[in-house]
């Protein structure tokens, strides 16, 4: 039973398209996150949601819009995709904001061509 699951695992799309990545956790956690891992493997937080409410929004283009329909789901929608958006996107969850020990999903490799 996967704790944090992301779909799709791979996503190849053309510049200018709009795409979504879905994330679900079955751990009963209140807080979910999106991290971006660039081509140099550096991981940086993008968004954090606590119980469906946005609590962290780092410097991310407004083409990226997270949506949390309930506390078990945090989806990432990206408009007008650019080449520089190519990366691996990781979803994670924790019991509460600042609670130690995040559980990560297996990642979505997005390639924009």
């Amino acid at each position, binding site marked *: 039973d996967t704790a944090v699951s992301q779909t799709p695992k791979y996503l190849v799309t053309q510049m200018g398209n709009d795409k979504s990545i879905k994330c679900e956790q079955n751990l009963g956690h209140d807080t979910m996150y999106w991290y971006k891992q660039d081509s140099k493997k550096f991981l*940086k937080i993008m968004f954090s949601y606590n119980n469906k409410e946005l609590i962290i929004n780092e410097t991310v283009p407004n083409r990226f819009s997270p949506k949390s329909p309930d506390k078990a789901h945090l989806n990432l929608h990206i408009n007008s995709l650019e080449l520089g958006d190519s990366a691996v996107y990781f979803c994670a969850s924790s019991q509460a904001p*600042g609670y130690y020990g995040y559980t990560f999903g297996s990642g979505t490799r997005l390639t924009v061509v």
Partner: protein
Amino acid sequence: AQSVTQLDSQVPVFEEAPVELRCNYSSSVSVYLFWYVQYPNQGLQLLLKYLSGSTLVKGINGFEAEFNKSQTSFHLRKPSVHISDTAEYFCAGQTGANNLFFGTGTRLTVIP
């Protein structure tokens, strides 16, 4: 600002040899420290964590790390590595109610 620095981007080591992956942290407040492992084309898996108490923490797969406040370090060690330990290793920190922040990663390659 809080940060963690991984001093080596790549570490090659022969099978069954010991290994140490270095991590230094910078924080003006108490910090939790973690090591995560990322196997090829997979997600991040927690190896071990330091929250408080004993400065030597043991994790999965035979790894351990020691929190050293005076040297602001949290180095990861394993006495004898296996081929299956080849992966990317990330040191991470967390302060208060803030989010997890990562180092730039160390690529461990175990040579047969």
